[in-house]
């Protein structure tokens, strides 16, 4: 590259995150509104009326776990404890599966540490019939909808009970009974597809809506922009969530343009109302999702929600975050740990205590341990039994055509 001549101010520029390994974590760029400070817009408000929400941050829980403000969903104790339990279970599952991957029990894994509220609270705010088009970090939805943990594990180790028949890499779940769409390895394809699914539901006169999740980095995909256009043009009953967890492997949210304007702000330009939410506040995520679902169900169309959170673990088992971000960065994250914050809220209400919490966590760890043991009874990655080889040509087409059947015969399976 040639040296820039004196006076050349075109300024070639590539953004860098506030801190890299060895540097002090710096989250001064994260704009945090005080809990309770952001009002709730009218359910039929125009996109242009949501400017303040694109910059603010909807929060219900303060640092001590006290709930306040117009977004407090006023859930009962059982509902709150259930959300806590589901977030704990998601974390326990991730923890064990990650370790098992390290021990060679599966090829690949992706944790959702620190982002449990994003999935669990949203799932609880939706109806079970609502179709979800998640990314690979919303396994909490599966727990919230009651998926059998053993089945999830059997998929991750491709054994004889894998409902995906050995065809998808771990974590890329599909669960049709739970209205949980196939996780796509190509980022953002689920966004326009969720819009189309939602429009089809509306065209059929059904009440189910769709919801989809992508990460901050994925907003740079063309699909993000076409999905927002389409959702706005057709007033599709869909909720489009951007989970801003600050990192896309080693490139930070700024590489997708997140430090120039909030991801939430992008919605307004497309004519979509937008909400920016504290993603580590289960009550705020619940309330924002409920608001968007109500808006969609009452015919006012789609909402873009940015959930601001932090990816507590590596992107996947394939990368080492110590090489690209400060090791202890999560500890400095201003929005804390979603599990701890909901725990503090419940304790503050007198509905929970540390002892019960510890007991819950240890029981969940044991549940996961026993589930994995059961999963292995249907086969392990190394020893099998694995997915039956004869099914390798199933589901290429609805019926197996002659040319595919001939290949199966040639293969001798």
């Amino acid at each position, binding site marked *: 590259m040639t040296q820039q001549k004196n006076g050349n101010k075109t300024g070639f520029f590539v953004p860098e995150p506030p801190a890299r390994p060895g540097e002090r974590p710096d989250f001064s760029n994260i704009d945090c509104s005080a809990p309770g400070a952001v009002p709730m817009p009218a359910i039929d408000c125009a996109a242009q009326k949501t400017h303040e929400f694109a910059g603010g941050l909807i929060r219900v829980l303060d640092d001590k776990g006290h709930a306040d403000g117009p977004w407090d969903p006023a859930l009962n104790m059982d509902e709150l404890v259930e959300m806590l339990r589901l977030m704990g279970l998601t974390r326990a599952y991730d923890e064990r599966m990650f370790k098992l991957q390290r021990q060679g029990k599966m090829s690949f894994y992706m944790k959702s540490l620190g982002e449990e509220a994003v999935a669990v609270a949203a799932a609880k705010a939706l109806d079970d019939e609502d179709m979800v088009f998640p990314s690979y970090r919303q396994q909490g939805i599966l727990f919230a909808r009651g998926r059998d943990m053993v089945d999830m594990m059997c998929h991750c180790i491709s054994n004889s009970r894998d409902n995906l028949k050995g065809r998808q890499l771990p974590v890329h779940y599909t669960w049709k009974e739970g209205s949980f769409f196939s996780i796509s390895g190509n980022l953002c394809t689920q966004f326009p*597809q969720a819009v189309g699914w939602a429009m*089809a539901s509306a065209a059929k006169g059904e009440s189910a809506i769709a919801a989809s999740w992508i990460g901050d980095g994925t907003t740079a995909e063309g699909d993000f922009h*076409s*999905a927002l*256009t*389409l959702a706005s043009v057709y007033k599709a009953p869909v909720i489009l969530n951007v989970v801003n967890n600050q990192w896309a492997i080693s490139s930070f949210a700024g590489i997708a343009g997140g430090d120039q304007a909030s991801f939430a702000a992008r919605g307004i330009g497309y004519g979509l109302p937008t909400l920016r939410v504290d993603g580590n506040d289960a009550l705020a995520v619940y309330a924002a999702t409920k608001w968007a679902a109500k808006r969609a169900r009452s015919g006012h169309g789609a909402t873009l929600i940015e959930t601001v959170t932090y990816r507590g673990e590596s992107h996947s088992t394939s990368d080492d975050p110590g090489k690209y971000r400060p090791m202890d960065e999560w500890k400095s994250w201003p929005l804390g740990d979603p599990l701890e914050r909901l725990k503090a809220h419940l304790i503050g209400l007198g509905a929970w205590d540390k002892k019960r919490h510890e007991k819950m966590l240890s029981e969940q760890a044991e549940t996961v341990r026993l589930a994995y043991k059961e999963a292995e009874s249907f086969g392990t990655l190394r020893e099998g039994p694995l997915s039956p080889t004869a099914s390798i040509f199933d589901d290429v087409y609805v019926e197996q055509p002659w040319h595919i059947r001939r290949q199966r015969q040639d293969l001798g399976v």
Partner: protein
Amino acid sequence: MAIEILMPALSPTMEEGVLSKWLVDEGDAIVSGDILAEIETDKATMEIESVDEGVIGKILVPAGSQNVKVNQVIAILLEDGETMDDVDEASIGKANPDKVEVKPVTDPVADTQIADSTSVPESNPALTDTIAVELAADTKMTPTTVRDALRDAMAEEMRSDDDVFLMGEEVAEYQGAYKVSREMLDEFGARRVVDTPITEHGFAGLAVGAAFAGLKPIVEFMTFNFAMQAMDHIINSAAKTRYMSGGQMSCPIVFRGPNGAASRVGAQHSQDYAPWYGHVPGLIVIAPYDAADAKGLLKAAIRNPNPVVFLEHELMYGEVFDVPDVDDWVVPIGKALVRREGVDATITAHSRMVGFSLQAAEILAAEGISVEVIDLRTIRPLDEETILSSVRKTNRLVTVEESWGRMGIGAEIAALVTAGAFDYLDAPPKRVHQVEAPLAYAANLEALAMPSPERIAEAVRGACYV
């Protein structure tokens, strides 16, 4: 002699239905055109009209009967002076020289049964078992443009299935860039004929999502050249999701629009994508030539539960061909058509190149060379048996396509023939295709780049060593 009234088929794929209501009683005198009964399937209802006159002698299948097989005898019509005593009831439904067999058309992709893996078939059973649509000699033919045939196919399917809808750029108010959706907005309204923003990638994704929700979208691309942007949704989502989801997710969708070169529209509007889509398991790829196939194959594509890529041709839209004037004209997917029989060489072609090949065959006939022309019709699955049996007869092969040759349809067919009919070949297969440069705009360069009847004839002469 008494006439057997048979359970009719509402569609080529119908095997049985409900006889919901009789509108005549035993003893009623009827004339041709009288409505005899109503039948229905889960998709549609239809009245049975009498084609003969006489007296209803006996109703064999009572109203309300479920699962009545197609071609089952449902009533006896007595001719003048006959009574039921003249009818040998034991022989009803047995071979009857007067009975017209109306065999249902089977779709080889949809209807193939999985055979026992130990019995490797000698030939392709799905294709050899396929019964082509047999038309009565007096079937009325209606001259129709390819454009209108496509429109009629969509409109007929949309009338019979509320889940089918059309979407794309300019398909509604403007009636399509090539007017293929003429009058469809008027008939079906804005819910089922949907204009989209200019984002092939976006609306293809939207349609794929709607298909996952159980609708049956027809996506019109203004040209398949623009569908390059939508490739990810067509291939990574539409074609692969059923497989990746362990069979849980289904994507019944048709992507259609003009493909290949028009007249002087430059490199970015002139590509033939048949080999691109033909490469992908999970997709069905169709490229019809005439109006009858355009209609019959598009109807089959819309009914097919798999994702289908349907490649039309801009320069064929205005061409007029006969289309059978029958209630439900459906052509089976996966079956090639021998457009012209011959003994000296086989030409394979699809879409517009079928016409060029037929012209070449005329030129060659004048020179004493007899050419067999196979219209592939379906690119995936390819009708291998029709190609192989033709080459086993003619011993020579020339493939013709608009796209570039390398890794093309012709390459695939040449490989198929060398593997399956090597001992029958008297000459190496020859390929005719576009030259390997992006297609130029100027007419002289475009003509030089593309196949022509004369160039096809020259390739056949080469294969015949004359």
